[in-house]
Structure formats: structure tokens, C-alpha cells
């Protein structure tokens, strides 16, 4: 469940609905009631209102905190750090982006072996986004030219197949053509 929420686009969509739906239930309802049904002053006992206000704010804050705390272990920096601690070997891949192609030091990987992508741009802003064969985004990087440290993270592929790479930062008239492909094979060991 958490994998879905924090690691897929539709999970993000679900998270969004989780917050929007309560709002959509409460706000239009009160507007409708006090506008069309009965615009007479509502009961606003100050004590009650203060309590309501507290409940409203505290539950909002609590939800905000929970959603973000649970996400921590899904953040690429914590994933990367965790893999670095446990993995015996991490395969290093250097990527150089320029308008409108990638230079990739290795395009073939094995299932289950962590890969560290270190990606740099040498001309303008580019992206390096890897798509699962089923079309979902696995991760996303933004590349600012001139940054000393390349954008970097460790990722472990879990399924064999052809993985599309796309640039997701607008980089000029052939931006949509800036793509590449990675191949993931079953591990032989």
C-alpha cells in the first residue's frame, strides 16, 4: 500500500484525493446550506467554535505529519543510503546529457543488483527519467549544468525488460526526441 502511495503516479493521485475529498464534502455542503437552505445565523457558541477550530487544525496537522513521516523511507536519499549500507557491490553508471541525447556508460543491468546513476548535463537543463516497461515513472532527475555534484541515486531494478529514458526538462525544439533505452536482464547468479 505504502509502496503504491509513494512510488507511483496514481499513488500520488490517491494521496491527493485523500485530502481533497473531505474538503469537497465539507465546503460545498456548508456553502449550500447557508446560501440556499437556511441563511439564518448558525449556532456559534464561542466555546464550541474554539473546540471545532482546534479539532480542524490539529487533525490537518496530524494528517500532514503522518503522510510525510511515512514517506521518509521512500525518499531516494534514504533509499540510497540504506542500499549503500547493505549492498556488497553497487554498479556505477555515469550519464552525460546534452541537447538532445545521452551518453551512458552502461545500458545493461541485472535484476536485483543496485545501480548508482550519476547524471550530469553539459549544456542546458535536462532531465533523466527512467520509465518501467509498463509506462510508469521509476524515478526522475533534474540536471542543472555547472553543478559540481552530478544528480545521483541508487536504484535496484526488480524486473527484466526494456526501460525507456526520457528528458523531462524542456530543453529546446527537439526536447521530445531526447530519449534512450536501458535493458534489464535476469541475473545469472
Amino acid at each position, binding site marked *: 500500500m505504502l509502496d503504491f502511495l509513494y512510488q507511483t503516479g496514481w499513488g500520488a*493521485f490517491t494521496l491527493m484525493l485523500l485530502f481533497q475529498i473531505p474538503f469537497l464534502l465539507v*465546503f460545498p455542503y456548508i456553502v449550500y446550506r447557508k446560501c440556499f437552505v437556511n441563511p439564518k445565523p448558525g449556532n456559534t457558541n464561542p466555546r464550541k467554535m474554539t473546540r471545532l477550530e482546534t479539532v480542524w487544525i490539529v487533525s490537518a496537522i496530524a494528517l500532514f505529519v503522518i503522510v510525510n513521516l511515512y514517506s521518509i523511507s521512500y525518499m*531516494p536519499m534514504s533509499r540510497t543510503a540504506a542500499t549503500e549500507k547493505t549492498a556488497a557491490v553497487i554498479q556505477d553508471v555515469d550519464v552525460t546529457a546534452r541537447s538532445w541525447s545521452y551518453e551512458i556508460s552502461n545500458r545493461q543491468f541485472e535484476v536485483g543488483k543496485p545501480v548508482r546513476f550519476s547524471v550530469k548535463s553539459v549544456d542546458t537543463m535536462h532531465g533523466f527519467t527512467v520509465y518501467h516497461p509498463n509506462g510508469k*515513472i521509476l*524515478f*526522475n532527475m*533534474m540536471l542543472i549544468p555547472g553543478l559540481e555534484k552530478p*544528480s545521483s541515486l541508487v536504484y535496484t531494478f526488480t524486473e527484466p525488460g526494456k526501460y525507456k529514458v526520457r528528458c523531462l526538462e524542456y530543453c*529546446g525544439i527537439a526536447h521530445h526526441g531526447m530519449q534512450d533505452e536501458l535493458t534489464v536482464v535476469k541475473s545469472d547468479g
Partner: protein
Amino acid sequence: MLTATIRRTPILGKMFDVDESTGLSDINTWPAMMIMTSFVWLIVAILLGALMPVIQMAELDANLFYSAITLHGAALAFPFLFQFMMGISLHRSGGCMGKSASGKLTTLIYLCMNGGAVLLTLAVLGGLKITYTVMYPLPLVGAQMGAWSMNMVVLGFTGIALVLTSIIFLYPLQIIRMSFFGKQREELLLSARTLKDPGMLGMVMSVMILLVTGTPLMIVAGALLLALYGIVPLEAIAWASEPVVFQYVFYIFAHNLMEAMAIMVISAVYATLPLYLADGTRKLYSDKLANLALWILLVTSVTSFFHHFYTTNPGLPSALAYHGNFMSWATGVGAALSTFTILATIWKHGIKPEPGLMAILAGFVVYILDGVNAMVAGNIAVSYQVHGTLWVGGHAMSVLIAMCLMWMGVLYHHYPVITGKKLDKKLGSRFVTLYFIGAVGLLYSFAAGGAMGMPRRFADWDAGPDGWMMVGIAILIFGLFLIAGFVTYMQNFMRSRSIS
């Protein structure tokens, strides 16, 4: 003279013909001029919005798509929406402070905004396709690669600099001047407000944000411009031409520009809502709570811009990423407070079903829906899924569309004072309905595209799964609803009748 210019303008002139009999010309004429001009930009740019999905379906040229997106984004954000907002808020400040909203400074605001936008438009037509976020150093790299000429870069940057001067310096100076200096003129005072009033506080806060967060960008952009003109050598401004420097000063400003515009419109909502209460009390549930919400928005927004850079990690140190994540969600606390204040006000006093107020409330709903969309993307883990997709493109667009609807509601309220004419209720409600359907539909369509991994600013929707083109079709359909909403709004202005 200005009144005559407005009157002589074909079609739109009739909508904004200022009522001179009231003696309020000093707070009405320039605002009317700005609002009218902003509509010209709207009409052109919104058609370009509808053109984008059409280009994709008909498989037209990618260059056309990138020109359309550049003009659509730039024109709707600045000479349309920002100018629309300036027009209304200059009128509001004038009426609340009893100060003239005209004069040299206002003229200059108008000329810089529209002159700059015209120059940028010419540059785009001349080949410059850099989107409204400039994507620096793309303008220079594109020129080196022969995608467009250096002349167009110089022309475009000059235009952008003029627009930014208007937004970052001239407009804030005018609002500050009106709020703190000069003599009050009794005859201009329509409804006196002080800075303790949430309806005024937000206005001053937001111009301060523009001034403070925009100045670094002005310095960097100014240095670049001097180099482009050949006045100083490029090496001398190496500190400014660094892409990282530009990207950071850009987003410090661009993010806060959106927040400033949001604070300004929320404060206008706080000022307008009480005027429509059913029991006639004209008071918010709590001014203190309203002000607190504005302060929270102010404080949390300033450093949440780091969320634009999560995916450059470790280029953006993790600590700053966490900070950006925290601040982005903390803005939500301000929004939760605003929601509570508005609901409690409505609950306590009841409201009248006037189209202007309905537009404001519908706009607020879209604003909150979009705020959630933004907060979710402001989570680091999620950002690695949706950054660079239509999700974020949709957020940028939806927040503007939401603010636009709230301002349209506020203008609905001020329109009779400016023109001496009254609007039709039925057309008003129809406009709110059409616009609201369009806005919500666009928001979810863009988010769905993002969920499917559909890139933003990407001239090949055919390259992905079928779902991408379906999203494109949904964008076109809901876009047409939005356009129908705008048309109805203008139709109402066209048909408005003299009050007397």
C-alpha cells in the same frame, strides 16, 4: 484622454467605459485600462491553450507547439493575470485608502508590463521558444545551436526585464506609496480600511514579498542583460551567468510570486466575503484568525521554493530538501486556517447567492484542490514520481486559473462602481458554472496525465500509451468549458445596463 481611449477600443471598450460622473476617475480609469488590456492578452493566449491539444491530435509541427506553450504560459501569467490583478487591486487600494491610483508611476507600470510583453511576444514569433520559466541557460544554448537567433534572445530578455520591473519594483512601490504615504482624499474613500484589516494586510504583505524575493532576480537578470547588450563583457558577470545561480534566484522569485498573488487574492476574499453576508453584519468570523492565516502563508512560503530542486539531489543538500518539504506542507496549515475562517463566517452569518460571491467561493475551492495537488508534489518521495510531468504543469496552471476566478468574482463586485453599470445575475451564474467545470476538469486531467508519467512541455503526446492522448482530449474539452466561461463573463459586461 484615457477614458476616451478606452471608449474607442473596439468591443472591449464598451465593457469598461468608465463612469465619469462619480468623480472617482482617479481610482477607476487606470484600473479599467489595465483590466481591459489584460483581456486582450487573455483572448489571444487562451486560444493558444486550446491550440496545443489540437496540434497534438492533428500531428502538426512541434515548433508550433513550443511557440504556443511559450506564449500561452507567459501571456496568461503576466500581462493577463498579473495585470488583471493589478488593475483590481489598484482600484481597491485607492478606494480603501482614499488615494489616487493614477499618475506617472501607474502609467509606467502599464507601459513596462505591456511593452515588455509585446517585445517578448515578438521574440517568440521570431523563433524564441523558452517557455515562461526561461529554462536558463536554454536561451543562450539554443542560440548557439542555431535554433533561434541571438537577436531574439536580446529582444526577449529586454521584454522580460521590463515585465519584471513592473511586477517587482513599480507595482509594489505604488501600493506602498498608497498605503503609507500621501494625503488621503475624502472623496475617493469608498470603504476605509486600515492595515489591521485582513483585506488590506495581505495586499501590503504580498508586495513586500515581490520586492524582497524579486530583487536578487532583477540583479542577476540585469547583469545578464548588460552582457547581452555588449556593455560589459560576459566574463565580468560570470557570477550571474552561472546556471545554478540563475535557477535559484529565479525560483526564489517565481515560487514567491505565486504565493504573493495567492496572499493578495485571499486577502481580497477576506475583504469581499463580509459584504455578502445574509445578516448584513459585514464581519468575518475572526479577523485575528484571518490575519494569522496570512502570516503563516507568508512565513512558510518564502523558503518552500526548494521543492523545485529535490530531484537534483545531492546538488540540493538533503537538509534543504527536508526543509522545503516541511515548509511546503506548512503552507497547508495557512490554507486550513483560511478554510476554517471562511466556513465559520458563512456558518455564522449566512450568505447571499450572488454570482460575484459564488465566483469567489468556487475559485477558493479550486485553489484548495490545487493546493493539495501542490502539497502532494511537495513531498520528496512523490516529487521523484511527478516532477517534470503534466502534474506540475497542471498545478502551475490551476493555481492561476483559481486565482483568476476569485479575482473575476472580486471584479464582479467592483464593476458597478467603476462603470456605473450593473450585471445580469443569470449570466453571472452561468459563467461561474461553466468556468468551475472547466477549471476542475483541467486540474484532474493534468494530474491524471502526470500520474501516467506524461511529460509537461512535450510536443509528442503520441509517443506514450494511448492514455496520454485521452488526457489531451480531456484537456481540450474542459478547456472549451473554461473558454465558454470567459466568453459568458465578457458577454455579461457587454450587456450590462446603466444603473440609473
